[in-house]
């Protein structure tokens, strides 16, 4: 991606260089040629509509090449390939917390293997930050209250700057770190050094501990929708709209379930806003996304009291 951005940049520099040269030289030549000492009497010339049209249309045409090329690159930058490895990022004043799917956690460092597409799923605990890796020519703001995503593929092992690019307070300029790009075998070794449980396993435990499994059952129809295989599928809402169950939808449905009620269910699920941390939320989202098949473990089958009094629940999805 970096080389594509650079190629476009060189094209822009060339066009801009030519334009600047034309205007600067034009002014210099005209200013010298028609200086008063040499040309004491100006000759009045009205405008020329033909010229006006020419110097409107040609720049417009050139600008459209900028637009199209830039939009194509942007489209690629914002469209993660299906085989991307997902990494969760939580930003806060003033650090980057990274969670790998395998359970490895890092602060202000992100280890990635070469040749692998990496999709970052990012959110902020407080203010707006921005994840900026100049070497990869990419940047994405990280917002509180929602996920933003982007992807990259590193090609060359090494350490690369990670900066926060959106002003976020006192230590904004200290909120940096390293992207550590490793050969796949080194990366595997590094990854094996960790001891944490995979992210979706943490999510599975939370799913059970928070009582989600009471209503979101996988065996029989509970009071909440069965979550098997819902990720990235369309969901029909009560008000007739259809939305895609992406990360932001799952997130919102946990934090503020009544915002979008799935058709056929009642708004009975309590809001988890302020109850689960961003890290727990990431684990839950990772777990829900992993449910392409009904879980074989115990989570959905646990026979908790179906009418646990304080928490009648309800969620989305058919």
């Amino acid at each position, binding site marked *: 991606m970096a080389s594509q951005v650079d190629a476009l940049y060189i094209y822009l520099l060339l066009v801009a260089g030519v334009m600047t040269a034309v205007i600067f030289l034009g002014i210099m030549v005209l200013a010298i040629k028609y200086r008063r000492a040499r040309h004491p009497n100006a000759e009045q010339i009205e405008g020329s509509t033909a010229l006006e049209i020419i110097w409107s249309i040609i720049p417009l045409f050139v600008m459209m090449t*900028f637009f199209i090329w830039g939009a194509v690159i942007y489209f690629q930058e914002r469209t993660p390939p299906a085989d991307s490895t997902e990494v969760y990022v939580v930003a806060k004043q003033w650090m980057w917390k990274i969670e790998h799917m395998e359970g490895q956690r890092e602060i202000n460092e992100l280890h990635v293997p070469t040749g692998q597409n990496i999709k970052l799923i990012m959110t902020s605990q407080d203010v707006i930050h921005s994840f900026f890796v100049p070497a990869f020519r990419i*940047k994405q703001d990280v917002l509180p209250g929602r996920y933003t995503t982007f992807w990259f593929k590193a090609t060359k092992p090494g350490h690369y700057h990670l900066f926060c*690019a959106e002003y976020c307070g006192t230590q*904004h300029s200290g909120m940096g770190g390293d992207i550590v790009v490793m050969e796949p075998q080194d990366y595997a070794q590094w990854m094996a050094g960790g001891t944490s449980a995979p992210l979706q396993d943490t999510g599975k435990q939370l799913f059970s501990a928070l009582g989600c499994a009471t209503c979101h059952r996988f065996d029989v129809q509970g009071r909440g929708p069965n979550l098997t295989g819902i990720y990235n599928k369309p969901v029909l809402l009560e008000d007739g709209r259809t939305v895609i169950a992406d990360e932001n939808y799952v997130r919102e449905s946990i934090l503020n379930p009544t915002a979008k009620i799935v058709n056929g269910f009642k708004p009975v699920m309590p809001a988890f806003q302020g109850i689960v941390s961003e890290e727990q939320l990431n684990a839950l989202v990772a777990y829900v996304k992993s449910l392409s098949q009904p879980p074989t473990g115990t989570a959905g089958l646990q026979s908790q009291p179906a009418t646990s009094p304080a928490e009648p629940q309800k969620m989305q999805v058919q």
Partner: protein
Amino acid sequence: MASIGIPANQAPKLNYLNNGHSLKSWLLTTDHKRIALLYLISVTVFFFLGGFFAMLIRLELLTPQGDLMQADTYNKVFTMHGMIMVFFFLIPVVPAVLGNFLVPLMIGAKDLAFPRINLLSWYLYITGGMIFLHCMLTGGVDTGWTFYTPFSTDYTNTKIVEAGLAIFLAGFSSIFTGLNFIVTIHRMRAPGLTWDRLPLFIWANYATSLVMILGTPVIAITIVLVAVERLFHLGIFDPRLGGDPLLFQHLFWFYSHPAVYIMILPSMGVISELIACFARKRVFGYKFVALSSVAIAVFGFLVWAHHMFVAGISLYAAMIFSFLSFSVGVPSAVKVFNWTATLYKGSISYATPMLYAFGFIGLFTIGGLTGLMLATIGIDVHVTDTYFVVAHFHYVMVGGVLMGYLGGLHFWWPKMTGRMYPEAWAKLSALLVFVGFNLTFFPQFILGYVGMPRRYWQYPPEFQALNVLSTAGASILAVGYLLPMIYFVWSLRYGAIADANPWAAAGLEWKTTSPPPTFNFDETPVVTWEAYNYDEIPHKERRAPVAG
């Protein structure tokens, strides 16, 4: 009050400057020319204050470590620099100083349509300015001039509401100025001065006024919303309260992008006047230059989200705003081409105002072309929020606006004060400004592309060389800006006496005395000629020094 029967080629006994010397005659004046001078003094104070903060920034960035001041102090310093320069200098400078002075003179009117509202504008501006100074002296603000939420509403304990109030008042000052200009230009033109005979400076101020009255209320509302969320914790922008932080950015940029055109359009108007006068020619493609101002004002309202390509707006929204952003590029390019074409077969003099006009075209060309790069989304993703953007908007807003302002100030100084400035010093300062400016800001383009984010108090050592260059340039630039301050003041007493039309320029403002009488014209002028009729006005080198 009006001066009576004074021949145009003699220094008048009674003019707007010596017609009353009491403090009251200045502070309660409704004369647009005196109000322009009140603005001139106040924006100059704010300019040097903002410039002082700029020097602090450049000194801190001389070294990679944060060593000159604390991080919090630095954050306040760049915030104060931005807010002062944007809201208390760049937005009012050309319309409120040159516009105020010249709009009635150029259209042959006695004053603006609402002289008392004009005075009220200045008082709103000064009140806002005083509140801002109080805010600054009692702690200041550390959000950056952009006030991004939820940082500004929930995560800073600095004086957001007070700074907001100051900007709110300054905003109304600019709304009233815009309103006054629009009514004046519609209703008070001299007989025969039809729309297609108006000086391009008037067209530019007209377009600017449209943006002022349509855009400024939005920033006023936005400031109120920030204050409401901050004071009463109503969920408008903070997601924890059910708000949307991006809503703030949409509202903010809906004003603050067009605000760039409030700054640059009047300067473009100045440049058209200067080039016509010093090339002794009608501006090439007059109608296209006039309408391009209006086109920029209109398109300027449709491009705000290009500040938000990485902020979390949707893929397709970003593409639409990228596309629309290029639409502003066309009328801007049209202006530059027409100015260049005006030189063709002219009779060009290199007086100081013309040097500034050349400088303007140079800096605006670079600022505009890098703007096209930023509108190209694939590039913007990499360079937004880096020094590339800082360099770009300084080229447009400072390079462009200040070149136009200084060029205009030199050009109309004899009209405003009745005195000439010292030409040699002025040429030197124009050169220093141009060289210093490029040395300060050009390295920042490179700095941005190699990845230095903006608003950084400390930075990795590999960025140091370019930062040192930039700071060196800033020192030259500072001298370039201080010099005119000194010789303009000097000229008030020692400058050569200016006659009514020292440049042999076209335009009604040159047909009255220098300085003009309180009511501008002894007799209402009747216009029977097109704008820039330089074929009918011989330049000074070929005629007796008498105004035409």
